[in-house]
């Protein structure tokens, strides 16, 4: 007993994870349908999602979820059959249902035996009532007529059809079904919720005599007559979990007698016995049964009247042939869908902890590999060096593929905002379209998780304050519908995410006045747009109706900025009055492991992420010196601010005759760093410095070299911004004087 025991808790967890995915699916399908209500693919995907949630919640006995989703599913089925037309109200209702289902899932995830709160019960009732209003009423009447007509047509086409308007489902369970922990009654139960079981006969002819009968084996079968407006796929799905443990045959309503003949042929019991059952259960009438049995006898009988038999046999085959092309097409389509789904499912779930552990180990491997490399280079042994360098290459590959495991496309996150844009723009009486680009851009999973809230806030902000009302837009000569663009792409050493709206743009004067009022700026102070707009990220800074009145939504713009900075990212605002606003977030690509570039100043080693280094060259003292107090150089006609790392970190000793300059770029800002010596590329793992150094600026971590020395990893984004800032200040003063 209990040989088929499986861990229910694990299964339940998977259920919640998968159901959430299904819900996400549901939401995006609904939003697709709102744009194009004829999109059959979305419609089917939507139905499947809801159907899956219903099915599996039933399996786990989560009744409230099952009951609710059942109703939603019914409605969607009607939509699929064209009985209900999709309009924006309907989508709205479905979205509410989606939210409620999410709520239910949350509730039962915490406690499988949870009871709905009064509020939820009320919501449940309210939604069901609204759903039912779609089901009832005048919709059913024309549908019946239609059914009648189609029935007539079909009758014209095929004479051998049976009268029964119901499905016939024939089930034979395998012996081990009980031992595998399955109970047929759950499937029958499930079936009974999809329609009405008109009749059901238990078949136990295969059960051996009492002495040999093992009660833990299953010898049962069922012949079922089922009434429900559904399709074969859906019915097959009912038995999805037990499909390997049973033989399932489904005959659709008004099938030809030949189908029943096949069934009689295939079932283990004698034709007479099956015939009897089919008659008793009500799928065949007496006359139909006789006809079927006769056909069956003729087909399998053989010896006598061989010629005639073959003739009839050929007719049967021929009949099947007629249906074949149609069948083939249907099968092909089904296979296409299946293949698509398989492709989607070609992934496995891994516990994030396991992945993190692997990544940590790879990190250690990278450090050790770098050590080995340095040590082997010191020996000068050529063969050893060669082996070591091919090993390093492999380690690099391993590292890259491991890091890739954590990379997730940002598109999924972007998709979620569609809902917010939809709901919020309605609430505000605005017409807004969300235009998503670069959804395939990949980001580290943790990064995505942390950026999604700030992004959401920026989008809300754009809806609230960026896009103007339709009437205002028209009076300004714009289209009624505003657009919010969401872009993601790679740029040197960083990932850029933009939120662009084509709204009013920031009001420069208003911000300036407010800043003066609150004493941040002097009334006669000159300030660049860039710096001025950064003020809206100040805590408590608000120009009331204009900039930040994100009503009670938790995070303000200051929190957005802080969050982004905590990821070592930055945000800038570009805005033009009447044209729109662009919020551009730069996030570093770098994760725990980086390809670094190592330099030396005095006796200290410094590493900077290689992808932020654009070039480096030797440079003479003359080129660096004597620029009227400012640190600038001419880089192919561009002004490049630079900084001496030696001075900056206050290293002792003399600078060498010929120094080197490294040009760094981050967030479209370039800056130079002057160092003593270039060491070269270096693969490394960022080790956090520990709490003691929490307040240390300019350094984002440290790493251990093969020699045992410690190299500091420079915080390039901060450095670049710092250099730019102090140097542009001196530049301004130089220009003024």
């Amino acid at each position, binding site marked *: *007993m*209990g040989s088929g025991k499986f861990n229910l808790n694990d299964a339940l967890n998977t259920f919640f994870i998968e159901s959430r995915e299904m819900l996400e699916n549901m939401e995006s399908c609904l939003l697709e349908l709102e744009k194009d209500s004829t999109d059959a693919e979305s419609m089917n995907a939507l139905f499947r999602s809801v159907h899956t949630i219903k099915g599996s919640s039933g399996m786990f006995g989560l009744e409230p979820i099952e009951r609710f989703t059942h109703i939603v599913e019914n409605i969607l089925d009607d939509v699929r059959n064209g009985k209900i037309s999709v309009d924006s109200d309907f989508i709205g209702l479905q979205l509410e249902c989606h939210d409620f289902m999410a709520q239910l899932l949350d509730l039962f995830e915490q406690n499988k035996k949870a009871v709905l709160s009064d509020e939820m019960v009320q919501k449940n009732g309210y939604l069901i009532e609204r759903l039912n209003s779609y089901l009832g009423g005048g919709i059913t009447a024309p549908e019946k007529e239609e059914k009648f007509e189609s029935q007539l047509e079909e009758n014209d086409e095929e004479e051998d059809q049976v009268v029964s308007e119901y499905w016939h489902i024939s089930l034979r369970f395998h012996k081990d079904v*009980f*031992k595998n922990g399955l*109970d*047929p*009654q759950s499937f*029958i*139960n499930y079936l*009974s919720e999809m329609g009405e*079981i008109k*009749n*059901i*006969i*238990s078949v*136990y002819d295969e*059960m051996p005599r*009492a002495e040999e*009968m093992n*009660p*833990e084996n*299953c*010898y*049962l079968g*069922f012949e079922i007559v089922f009434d429900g407006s559904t399709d074969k796929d859906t019915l097959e799905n009912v038995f999805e979990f037990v499909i390997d443990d049973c033989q399932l045959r489904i005959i659709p309503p008004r099938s030809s007698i030949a189908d029943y003949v096949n069934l009689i042929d295939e079932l283990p019991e004698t034709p007479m016995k099956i015939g009897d059952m089919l008659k008793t259960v009500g799928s065949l009438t007496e006359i139909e049964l006789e006809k079927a049995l006769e056909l069956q006898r003729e087909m399998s009988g053989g010896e006598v009247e061989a010629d005639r038999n073959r003739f009839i046999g050929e007719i049967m085959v021929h009949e099947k042939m007629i249906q074949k092309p149609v069948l083939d097409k249907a099968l092909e389509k089904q296979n296409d869908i299946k293949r698509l789904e398989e492709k989607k499912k070609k992934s496995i779930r891994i516990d994030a902890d396991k992945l993190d552990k692997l990544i940590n180990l790879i990190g250690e491997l990278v450090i050790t590999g770098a050590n080995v490399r340095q040590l082997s280079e010191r020996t000068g042994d050529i063969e050893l060096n060669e082996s070591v360098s091919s090993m390093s290459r492999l380690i690099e590959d391993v590292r890259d593929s491991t890091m890739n495991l954590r990379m997730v496309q940002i598109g999924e996150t972007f998709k979620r905002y569609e809902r917010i844009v939809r709901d919020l723009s309605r609430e505000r009486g605005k017409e807004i379209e969300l235009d998503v680009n670069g959804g395939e851009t990949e980001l580290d999973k943790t990064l995505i998780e942390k950026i999604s809230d700030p992004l959401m806030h920026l989008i809300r902000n754009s809806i609230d304050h960026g896009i103007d009302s339709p009437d205002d837009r028209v009076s300004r000569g714009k289209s009624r519908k505003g657009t919010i663009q969401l872009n993601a792409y790679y740029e040197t050493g960083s990932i850029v995410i933009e939120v662009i709206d084509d709204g009013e743009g920031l009001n420069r004067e208003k911000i300036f006045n407010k800043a003066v009022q609150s004493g941040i700026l002097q009334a006669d102070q000159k300030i660049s747009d860039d710096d001025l707009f950064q003020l809206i990220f100040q805590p408590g800074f608000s120009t009331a109706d204009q900039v930040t009145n994100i009503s009670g939504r938790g995070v303000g713009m200051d929190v957005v900025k802080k969050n982004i900075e905590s990821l070592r990212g930055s945000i800038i605002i570009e805005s033009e009055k009447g044209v729109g606003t662009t919020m551009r977030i730069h996030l570093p690509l770098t994760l725990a492991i980086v390809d670094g570039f190592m330099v030396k100043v005095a006796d200290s080693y410094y590493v900077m992420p290689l992808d932020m280094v654009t070039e480096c060259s030797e440079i003479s003292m003359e080129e660096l010196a004597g620029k009227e107090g400012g640190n600038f150089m001419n880089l192919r006609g561009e002004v490049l601010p630079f900084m001496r790392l030696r001075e900056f970190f206050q290293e002792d000793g003399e600078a060498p005759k010929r120094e080197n300059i490294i040009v760094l770029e981050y967030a479209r800002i370039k800056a130079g760093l002057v160092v003593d010596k270039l060491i070269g590329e270096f693969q490394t793992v960022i080790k956090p410095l520990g709490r003691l150094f929490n307040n240390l600026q300019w350094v984002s971590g440290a790493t251990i070299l093969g020699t045992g020395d410690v190299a500091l990893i420079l915080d390039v984004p901060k450095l670049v911004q710092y250099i730019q800032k102090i140097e542009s200040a001196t530049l301004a003063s130089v220009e003024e004087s």
Partner: protein
Amino acid sequence: MNASVKEEKKGSGDISLSIKGDMTIYTVNELKQSILNGLEDSTGRIELDLAQVSRIDTAGYQLLLLLDREALAENKKIVIKKPSGEVKRLFNLYKYSYE
């Protein structure tokens, strides 16, 4: 998860079997023997009292079908008495008539 069968002679070859507890895959093995014993002991009617069956699954249902068939083969009669709510629910699902 246990089950017991209580057998009572009722005179003129009739007996009564009261099943108490679960009729599930976990208990069908032991139940089978007791029930078949009861069948053997009787020469006429077998009253099956299912009032105290707390749970029943398809394996338990199958056991009842077995009893049904064996009784029929031996020309004996099974009468189901007072099925509990759980049992009733299953009978209804399988449209098994017991009255």
